[in-house]
């Protein structure tokens, strides 16, 4: 098998399990590079990567940019707020402009679900989804799974909780899709307003009571809760949300001692997760960030037609 035989990386659903394995293998190789003094390789020399973020983001954008730079790509960061987009330019016209300048990879974050899918059907360049609306955030899911794999060797048989605003979360959707694919049991937890029954189509369990499920969890992903959900009456107050669904120090004590605590960031300390928990030895929140760069390097590398790196090492 060679690289990823696809133009775009849009969601977890469209990836084969074989491709996922390949991404993890090469990510391991790239992560090893981080310990060396020279961290760059010439894999994408002469290629142009554009990051096009229609929503604010710190870690995902920087992670992609660092990944591209470490692969020696030419990098353009389109700052949407200062570009023609504010003059009313359409998405398709903006990207055709980037294509006319020979952009090879468009890394896009967009508030509208399926915007990267729409784009991929209408342009030649590779589209990498850096998060679309509530729909998908495949590179986040891949780095989450990779981070658990690093700790446990396999997801097979693990019970993983995803807690919080499932309904409006692209991370939750991509995570559950991938964790299930890799053999884990997934429990979604939050109030019914944020965890609709429809999610059962992912073959996951649903709980409204965090205290019930924490003793079972091998890993837990604490999603960020947003102010606008409270405004929309999905829950009455942050105080009540914290009481019911925050991962507090007290709740952490009732978890398995080696439970893995994840958070996609940015963290609302004191709302969905207490600071002692975020900074506890169980937390891999910073490790997730490091792994994010390796996973994204792996994706660029494989989309560029790179051969599996383990085989390269053998030869």
């Amino acid at each position: 098998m060679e690289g990823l035989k696809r133009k775009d990386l849009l969601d977890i659903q469209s990836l084969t399990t074989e491709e996922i394995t390949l991404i993890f293998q090469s990510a391991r190789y790239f992560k090893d590079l981080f310990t060396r003094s020279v961290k760059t390789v010439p894999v994408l020399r002469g290629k142009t990567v554009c990051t096009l973020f229609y929503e604010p983001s710190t870690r995902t954008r920087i992670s992609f940019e660092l990944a591209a730079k470490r692969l020696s790509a030419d990098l353009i960061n389109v700052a949407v707020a200062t570009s023609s987009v504010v003059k009313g330019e359409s998405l398709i016209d903006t990207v055709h402009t980037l294509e006319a300048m020979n952009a090879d990879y468009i890394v896009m974050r967009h508030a509208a679900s399926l915007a990267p899918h729409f784009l991929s059907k209408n342009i030649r360049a590779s589209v990498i989804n850096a998060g679309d609306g509530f729909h998908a955030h495949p590179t986040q899911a891949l780095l989450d799974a990779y981070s658990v794999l690093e700790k446990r060797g396999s997801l097979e048989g693990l019970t993983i909780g995803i807690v919080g605003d499932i309904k409006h979360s692209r991370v939750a959707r991509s995570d559950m899709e991938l964790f299930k694919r890799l053999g884990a049991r997934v429990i979604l937890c939050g109030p019914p307003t944020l965890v609709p029954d429809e999610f059962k189509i992912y073959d996951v369990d649903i709980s409204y009571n965090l205290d019930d499920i924490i003793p079972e969890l091998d890993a837990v992903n604490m999603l960020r809760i947003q102010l606008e959900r409270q405004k929309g009456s999905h829950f009455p107050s942050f105080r009540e949300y914290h009481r019911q669904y925050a991962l507090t120090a007290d709740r952490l004590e009732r978890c398995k001692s080696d439970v893995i605590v994840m958070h996609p960031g940015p963290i609302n300390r004191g709302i969905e997760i207490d600071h002692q928990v975020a900074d506890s030895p169980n937390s891999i929140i910073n490790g997730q960030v490091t792994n994010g760069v390796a996973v994204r390097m792996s994706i660029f590398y494989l989309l560029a037609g790179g051969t599996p790196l383990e085989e390269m090492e053998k030869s």
Partner: protein
Amino acid sequence: MDILIKNGRVIDPESGMDALMDVRVSGDRIAEISTGIGAASGYEIVDAEGCLVVPGLIDMHVHFREPGSEDKETIIGGSIVAAKSGFTSVCTMPNTTPVIDNQALVRFIKLEAEKGPINVFPIANITKGAKGEEITEMGELVKGGAVGFSDDGKPVMSSILMRRALEYARMFDVPIISHAEDILLTDEGIMNEGANSTLLGLKGIPRESEEVMIARDLLIARLTKGRLHIAHVSSAGSIELIKWAKGEGIRVTCETAPHYFSLTDDAVVEHLAMAKMNPPLRTERDRKAIIEGMKSGVIDVIATDHAPHLMNEKMQEMEYAPFGIIGLETAVPLVIHVLVRENNFSFIEAFKLLTINPARILKLDRGELKEGKTADITILNPARQVRVDETFIISRCKNTPFIGKDFYGSVEFTICGGKLVYKKA
């Protein structure tokens, strides 16, 4: 010139006639329907061998965008598209710019339509400025030519205003057409709420958004004894509610659109914004219920909700694209293909939904094939395939998820008021 239609299978849903007959048109009237009419000189002969001869089709729900968005469609342009699609009468919805809330605007539509090939019967607004605050001058509007009232595109959210509209319109005996949607429950949704919206991360519109409003309007119709017509029914639950209301003797009729009996929300996965309409495409269970509802008579009418939008509006993020697809040109192909061929509708069962039923709701003396009636006639070949492609679609907007598809059912000739207004090349 007078017209003689030879050898066609004449279908008149009103009388139940289904027979091989000739039809002679003289002036603007149907002069004779019988077998073996001799071809006298001076007649234009239309050979309808292998074709159905049906009453001119009536579409009681189109958007021709004029005044205000003439880049999308015009009254004359839309009428030409309608003629090509087998329609001899259409009702234009009033959500134009400005909206149709005074007599001068109704007259403007009628005047424009006189230059076009078919009949246009305007629907005027229920409320002034479509603001949902005060009812329009319905008497003046009816005098100007309005055949019904609707704030289509959005609901009348105020229950008391809906009550007043249904009560007041009783004196004109015209329908109040409800765009049934609780916009608070819709909550900025863009597709049907269910498995697909969950998987795609798109905001859902629950069926209940439609059903809650239908239930409200049915009860207000019971209270007022007003005439209620429900536009674009899309869900199984809506049909249950309307069925109940008809059983109770409430004066209600309803329509569905071809896309609701042809597609489900699976189409969104493939077509994105081209499959975005309001109400949204639902599920297979709803689609089946709609087909059953048409067969059992709960659903009275097929109307297209023809909604032209420019390509650049549809070629953007689905969330930002406008609701609506064009429907005139695919109507006959979908009726023949989906209802007649796939679901065993007789031609009479299928075409009454497009002829006599809407004519009765709108009180038009049309929709029948009988001697002495206005010669609005559509001739179509149910065995001939059409491919819905860029050349087939003559509408200036081509926003349809059916592009590239083949269907049975080809409109061959359209006669309106005794004039041949369309002939397939």
